[in-house]
């Protein structure tokens, strides 16, 4: 059994360099660095995110899948623009690009929308990068049109399943719903052909998560993701600040969890309380730091970026 760290000393030092520069970037831009608990009594209700439950006393506690809910409560408390570097945990996620415990940089910019936030990310990554970076932007709809000649607004679920079965050998697509088909095509077919840094924005409203609907096009949410050579690095939104809509989304999640036989979770009433008390319009993003290190240093797997993987 090896006691040595998994990451090389170079990677360990680069991580320190990146963290130093991130803190300098946000401190000079007027952000407040915050710290929120990793272990909390509520967790994300999203159907595709599984939390690790920790047994302690009478009530369950969950290792946080992201610091989002807690940071929004800080926004409601009047902290202004905030950032945090922390760990997050996701049950069952393990592979070349996944580890159940990973590092996140999450920040919320008061007064920004998602487009301005994408520009801020571009600036941050350019600052951190050792090489020249090239960024491009495409809407989710355009991405499917140009990569797969698919009109996602018109295509039927049946046709989507056929396209999945054609494009992904050995995929049993009969039981996939619309969003699952889109997820499979994006992950297995489209992402591998992406080049350089690419922002994909305006996700379908059915994949809005905690993003607000686009006021000019109610079929999409003001949500984006950043990819580098097809590796997903960041996910961000113009944040949904409406407590009523947020409760409706939570209830929909809980219904969907029940239908799929997933663990039942309580709605985070504290988050809803914070939204009810009011938070300013803002945009927020979570950026995976292990994957960012992979990209910055040209590593082949997330494992090489992890300090330890025992």
């Amino acid at each position, binding site marked *: 059994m090896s006691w040595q760290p998994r990451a090389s000393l170079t990677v360990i030092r680069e991580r320190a360099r990146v963290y130093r520069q991130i803190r300098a970037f946000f401190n000079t831009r007027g952000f407040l660095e915050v710290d929120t608990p990793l272990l909390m009594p509520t967790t994300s209700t999203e159907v*595709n995110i599984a939390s690790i439950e920790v047994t302690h006393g009478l009530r369950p506690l969950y290792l946080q899948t992201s610091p989002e809910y807690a940071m929004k409560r800080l926004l409601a408390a009047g902290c202004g623009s905030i950032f945090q570097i922390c760990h997050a945990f996701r049950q069952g996620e393990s592979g070349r690009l996944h580890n159940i415990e990973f590092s996140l940089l999450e920040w919320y910019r008061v007064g920004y929308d998602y487009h301005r936030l994408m520009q801020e990310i571009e600036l941050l990554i350019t600052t951190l990068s050792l090489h020249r970076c090239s960024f491009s932007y495409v809407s989710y709809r355009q991405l499917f049109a140009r990569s797969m000649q698919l009109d996602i607004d018109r295509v039927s679920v049946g046709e989507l399943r056929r396209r999945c079965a054609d494009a992904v050998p050995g995929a*049993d697509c009969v039981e996939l719903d619309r969003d699952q088909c889109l997820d499979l095509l994006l*992950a297995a077919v489209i992402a591998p052909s992406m080049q350089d840094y690419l922002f994909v924005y305006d996700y379908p409203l059915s994949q809005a998560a905690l993003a607000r609907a686009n006021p000019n096009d109610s079929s999409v949410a003001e949500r984006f993701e950043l990819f580098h050579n097809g590796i*997903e690095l960041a996910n961000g939104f113009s944040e949904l600040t409406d407590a009523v809509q947020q409760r409706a989304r939570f209830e929909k999640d809980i219904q969907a969890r029940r239908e799929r036989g997933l663990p039942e979770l309580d709605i985070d009433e504290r988050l809803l309380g914070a939204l009810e008390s009011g938070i300013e319009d803002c945009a927020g993003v979570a950026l995976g730091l292990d994957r960012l290190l992979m990209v910055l240093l040209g590593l082949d797997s997330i494992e090489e970026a992890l300090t330890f993987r025992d």
Partner: protein
Amino acid sequence: MASYSTNEFRGGLKIMIDGDPCAIIENEFVKPGKGQAFNRVRIRNLKTGRVLDKTFKSGETVEAADVIDIEMQYLYSDGEFWHFMDPQTYEQQAADANAVGDAYQWLKAQDNCQVTLYNGSPIGVTPPNFVELEITETDPGLKGDTAQGGTKPATLETGAVVKVPLFLEIGELVKVDTRSGEYMSRVKK
């Protein structure tokens, strides 16, 4: 029947696919951050040897295949079956041509092989990585021609034909890599 969740997928795991026992060669976990997770696996059908790709929704379960690999000693062939014995229990197994596949050309009595049993019957035979076999047929050796790179075909005692250096003679023992079918070295008797 035992089953595996996709979370347990890893190289070498034996699972049932479309009614046939298969071994996982590669397992790739893909997941858009907020989307559905999938396991994309490359598997080998242990009966036919065919390699195919499968994609599962993560969290699905797949029936486990009752497949074990055991070390057995090769005894003899009766023309229809190849007979092996477990050196621990002395239990014997007869493998047919389908199960033995290309391995037949490396099987020498008393050598230890890996026999793959599915529901207790042989479906595959893997010879040792290296075997030492006697040359039974080849063109006469060229004396002194040890330095040059030329080769000639030689038939070995098991029937396998491999390329050997020109200086080797009938009756000599050679070491062969069974994975590539390549001559490795001459073996002193």
